[in-house]
């Protein structure tokens, strides 16, 4: 037995032996909670589920795409997005069999090659999410699965357009993640993070170092803030980003990737001096 094993054994033994403080009425509260559980709804759903699922799967999985009346009404209120990005329609896909549910609503863009390229990327991405949802539904048995996808225009200026697509997958727990799509209206090009920088610029190292610095700084300033600096090695070369209202570069990380779920989707605003010399 090595030194750590011995210490593990000591700790396990102490965990068993030492009294653990439970609140006075905790056991009573657990008991009352269990006693108040309602048994009937789950049993009823269990008995009728498979027929319902089969019909719903058949009806809904082939009804793609679809346009919701609500989305169409909202469309009329959305102005034309700049000169080369137009929002032409909302694509909507919904599914609900009582156990698994999905609500996917994303825009289709037109007006330029770049807008259509973003639209194709969004469609491919959401098709992938829907396919994953469908595959999970097939293997889920009697579990619960949820998928919600919505979008928002983050920026629409004379020179720049950013569309944000937010997704939440739920299966016992919720997992939030987003994708950002950018168009440089001055060039008419779809832009990723790498496209902002010169080919020879090591922007990954520069931005990663700043993210790590901010993680440490925030944790030192506030004990309730937690990240995983020891598990963070570098940003993705195509890391999600957007430019905020002040024109600052903001890097966005999916939930659970660099922090506990309690931190949601962390964002880091990067000072221009960190990357200014690396830009194209």
């Amino acid at each position, binding site marked *: 037995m090595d030194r750590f094993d011995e210490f593990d054994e000591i700790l396990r033994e*102490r965990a068993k032996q030492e009294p*653990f403080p439970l609140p006075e009425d*905790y056991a009573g509260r657990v008991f009352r909670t269990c006693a108040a559980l309602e048994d009937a709804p*789950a049993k009823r759903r269990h008995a009728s589920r498979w027929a319902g699922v089969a019909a719903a799967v058949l009806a809904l999985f082939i009804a793609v795409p679809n346009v919701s009346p609500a989305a169409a009404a909202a469309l009329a209120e959305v102005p034309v997005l700049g000169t080369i990005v137009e929002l032409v329609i909302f694509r909507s896909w919904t599914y609900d069999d009582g156990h698994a549910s999905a609500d996917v609503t994303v825009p289709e863009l037109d007006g330029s090659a770049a807008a259509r390229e973003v639209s194709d990327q969004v469609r491919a991405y959401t098709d992938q999410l829907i396919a994953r949802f469908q595959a999970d539904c097939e293997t*889920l048995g009697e579990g619960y699965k949820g998928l919600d996808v919505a979008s928002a225009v983050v920026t629409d200026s004379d020179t720049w357009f950013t569309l944000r697509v937010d997704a939440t997958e739920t299966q*016992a*727990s919720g997992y939030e993640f987003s994708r950002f799509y950018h168009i440089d209206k001055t060039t008419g090009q779809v832009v990723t993070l790498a496209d902002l920088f010169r080919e020879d610029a090591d922007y990954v190292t520069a931005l990663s170092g700043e993210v790590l610095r901010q993680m440490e700084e925030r944790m030192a300033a506030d004990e309730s803030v*937690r990240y995983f600096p020891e598990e963070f090695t570098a940003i993705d070369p195509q890391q999600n980003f957007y430019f905020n209202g002040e024109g600052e570069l903001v890097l966005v990380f999916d939930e*659970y990737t660099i922090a506990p779920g309690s931190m949601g989707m962390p964002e880091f605003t990067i000072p221009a001096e960190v990357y200014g010399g690396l830009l194209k």
Partner: protein
Amino acid sequence: MMQAKLDKDTFSALVIQNQETLFHTAKAILRSDEDAEDAVQEAICAAFERRESLREADKFRPWLLRILVNKCYDTCRRRRPTVDLEDVADYLPAKGEDHTERLTLWQAVMALGGDLRAVVTLFYYDGLSIREISGVLGISEAAVKTRLSRGRAKLRQLLEEE
């Protein structure tokens, strides 16, 4: 593999059997007794509603813990960044306290950082494996090992300082 068909009585018996583990885990994440009790209650109700998603009855404990951990994270999201001073005070030396008194393991665990407490509690108090902890907390096995290693080193330091 045992197929789970939990009726209310069986479900309740399993909950009661695991009630200390549930409280350890919630308290390790939330620190506050009141929040931990609320999270346990919410998790029991949510788990009962979704109990058909439990396909192997012998996985009841990690399955319920996973639901509880998510309830705890929801609580953290709602309340961040405030910290209840009374809860912090529980883990600070009181005035006039006899510092020769032995630090309990739980006091030492609660002095760890937030990301270490749950891993350490599930490993030492509840005997979960690295893989099970990974599933419960939704993090990689490598991350569990890293945190366990850091938690162990910190506990050694805290408990041997006495």
